[in-house]
């Protein structure tokens, strides 16, 4: 069959259909919905208060650390997937090699763990101190 698309051609048809669905949905809604903007509607929602400043602030640096650790492990898993499909044929030698490969990354995880990069700020309970009144009871009794 000369017209048969390759498998990734089918995926491309899925991509086109997904885009058509989303764009078609937007356009259908555009025909049906009203459009009466006013300044209050177009303001940013901040629990009914006027928005203070912009939301585009700096991220917490911890998110970058998480992203870095993620990339290292994700690349590792990507390398292990092809190995996993054939390791039964390759036998013991390939097993030991993969364990060494994974072991180095586990050492990396242990390093990040010991260094405290995996710890997030825990909320500390903030109990307000009450002034202790010593003569309280005697006053109540009298």
């Amino acid at each position: 069959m000369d017209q048969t698309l390759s498998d990734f051609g089918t995926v491309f048809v899925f991509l086109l259909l997904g885009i058509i669905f989303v764009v078609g949905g937007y356009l259908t809604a555009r025909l049906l919905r009203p459009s009466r903007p006013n300044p209050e509607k177009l303001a940013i929602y901040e629990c009914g208060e006027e928005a203070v400043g912009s939301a585009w602030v700096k991220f917490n640096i911890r998110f970058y650390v998480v992203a870095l650790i993620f990339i290292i492990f994700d690349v590792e898993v990507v390398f292990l997937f092809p190995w996993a499909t054939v390791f039964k044929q390759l036998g013991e030698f390939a097993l030991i090699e993969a364990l060494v490969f994974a072991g180095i990354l586990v050492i990396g995880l242990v390093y990040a763990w010991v260094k405290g990069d995996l710890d997030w700020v825990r909320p500390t309970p903030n109990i307000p101190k009450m002034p202790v009144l010593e003569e309280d009871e005697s006053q109540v009794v009298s």
Partner: protein
Amino acid sequence: MSTGAFLPNSFPIVMSTSLNAWSDALSEYFLFGLPVGLVILAALPLVFIALYALTYGVYGERKISAFMQDRLGPMEVGKWGILQTLADILKLLQKEDIVNKSADKFLFVIGPGVLFVGSFLAFAVLPFGPAFIGADLNVGLFYAIGIVALEVVGILAAGWGSNNKWALYGAIRSVAQIVSYEIPAAIAILCGVMMAGTLSMQQFNILQQGEYGFLHFFLFQNPIAWLPFLIYFIASLAETNRAPFDIPEAESELVAGYFTEYSGMKFAVIFLAEYASMFMVSAIISIVFLGGWNSPFPNIGPLLLNDWTTGPVWGAFWIIMKGFFFIFIQMWLRWTLPRLRVDQLMHVCWKVLTPFAFVAFVLTAIWEIYVK
């Protein structure tokens, strides 16, 4: 083929035993330069997502939640509120589409689209039974994990584009969570790949076929498989932002998270994407560990339960039912467990699930080489 026996031969969808023969049969016809067979092949999962999200996803979840809390749930529109979701769709279609004046309009508009297309593309490799699969890629499972991760881009675009503090916090939390839980999830899937020795989604199902039904499933073939199974299930909850890992959408602190500013059709698209990825992770877990479209019933003597419940239509039934079963557990957990804190979330991922995933990886490798 017991199920298709009484149907005429002109029903290739039901009759064909070979993979997607009905799609090839239509390959002479073209729609805008694309083969009609392929367009139907891609349209059926889309219809499935829409129908499932409307019925089981929205209405079912509201009813199940209501019954778990001793409420009645939606009761107004139609008998037992059956038409409630249709009414909601009509409302969402007519809803004014508000785009903030100070939002990044391009990212704001494209965010829901990326989210939906990402989770829909994963359905391209999902086998709905022995005779229906979009594209049986030889790297199918790998592709599915990768393309589902595309939703991170959509969430970040939506959250950042909104220029709203709730949306941005929700988006950052969500991305950190999805990205972190992808490691244990991927290693757990890796254990499944080691048992099967293939990445093709259809091959996974064929390997778990057999007359003893559920005894051929990888979960029951290998005692170690329970560990990656549980790890993947927990991680999949986090990847779809479901409770108890729903801090990105924590209603009581972040209003709605990254979709705070969305209304109308864009909101509907985000919801559809969430339900699609919920089904996708449930389908992946049932394909890798629970036999996918294979019937769980064994043949017992003259009772050929397995043969009777095998076939193209039964296959679609089993994979959808297994997916719905896991979605039901997700709904159940939502009303059972309280939400985790951010530091607990990271603790569970990096200090509990990831080490256990490595243990499962080593044990599976040793089992496959020395024991089996």
